[in-house]
């Protein structure tokens, strides 16, 4: 798939698709994303990134916010943000402006 154009750039502004529900699952003690025939159990990184999505934020802005909150190197955070959101977009969980 290397030949494909990237689905997201640092300027993309993703948010959860209208039909996707993020909810707490008490049986698994995890946050999960629900979409038709798709369930994704989120780890802490995924949840932290999704919590800062929406409200028109770009990937670059999400990285900034997380880097400030966690006092972590923006380079590493940017990689996580891109990887997590690309995976979610590939699987149809996101709408991207």
């Amino acid at each position, binding site marked *: 798939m290397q030949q494909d154009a990237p689905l997201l750039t640092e300027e993309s502004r993703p948010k959860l698709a209208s*039909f996707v529900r993020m909810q707490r699952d008490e*049986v698994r003690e995890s946050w999960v994303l*629900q979409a*038709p025939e798709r*369930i994704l159990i989120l780890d802490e990184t995924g949840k932290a990134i999704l919590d800062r999505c929406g409200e028109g934020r770009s990937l670059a802005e999400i990285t900034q916010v997380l880097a400030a909150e966690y006092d972590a190197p923006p380079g590493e955070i940017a990689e996580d943000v891109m990887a997590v959101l690309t995976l979610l977009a*590939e699987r149809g969980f996101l709408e991207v402006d």
Partner: protein
Amino acid sequence: MADGSAASALRPPIAMLAELTHRCPLQCPYCSNPLDLQRRSEELSTEEWCNVIRQAAALGVMQIHLSGGEPTARPDLAEIVAAAQAAGLYSNLITSGVMLDEAKLATLKAAGLDHVQISFQDSRAAGGDLIGNFKGGHEKKLAVSKLVREAGLPLTVNVVVHRQNLDRIEEIIDLALALDAHRLEVAHVQYYGWALTNRASLMPSRAQVDHATEVVEAARKEYRGRLAIDYVVPDYYARYPKKCMDGWGSQYFAVTPRGRMLPCHAAETITGLEFPSVREGSLAEIWASAEIFNRFRGTDWMAEPCRSCEHRERDLGGCRCQAFALTGDATATDPACSLSPHHAVMLATAQAEADSGDPDYIYRR
């Protein structure tokens, strides 16, 4: 199971298929319902379904697929949806669409319905109405799909594919795009029950399958991020079997109209097993302890060539129902596997049937 290998692998189920009724206005010759259809008088009541839903949620189920037959034939469907919503389940209505209208959709949405999946039998009316044996069905489905999107509900278009419609795979993808679907499910016929009866009329050729697979793969790339395409592969031309149900008793279960709880909706085709009822035991007990759920959990039940195979965890021996249907032994390797001694016969059957003449459907009724 004394060593506990099944028990240690026991995880909570994630999804439940609720077959609310076997009644349906369509008569598709590949229907996944059993040959012996259950009657309305046997069906679980509203309160029984609501109770099943609450138990399922407590057990860990996150998604409910409301199916049938035709689930909208149940006048209490909105009450059942509301129970799913109250229990925190993501609800998916799996429907032919032909009994829906704007008012019914509004009621279901208000009850908390999350998603609608409409089946199309073809990209064109002539083929679709012939498969469903229901005149005007295709046009009605187009209209109802539009209503679903206008109601603000997400839509999956589901098309079961076979020799009679597979050459229109491009049109099928275009149909899903034109209907503003979020997801397209292209499912090759799975040959149990009705479909096995009609196999000679439905079996595609290898060339048809290869073409369709190529088209789907290209479309997945082209519409990435816009239309998700799920592709249920055709067993008869496979080299290795599918990991059926992601493992028997692993993530899913089905409840039939009269309340039998099954590891898969086709499990009743395996004779000699006992099928527990939600009228007689709790879902938690049945999931953990019923003989039928433990019978093929994990890998302990396997015979050769599965038992010592390096792929045994990857596909878990394939489909138990198919193994039973084609070999008479539910513990056999799924003949879809090239390592099965029955594989050559299965492939030869497919090739011979794909070359047979015009369809002569035995309709489900």
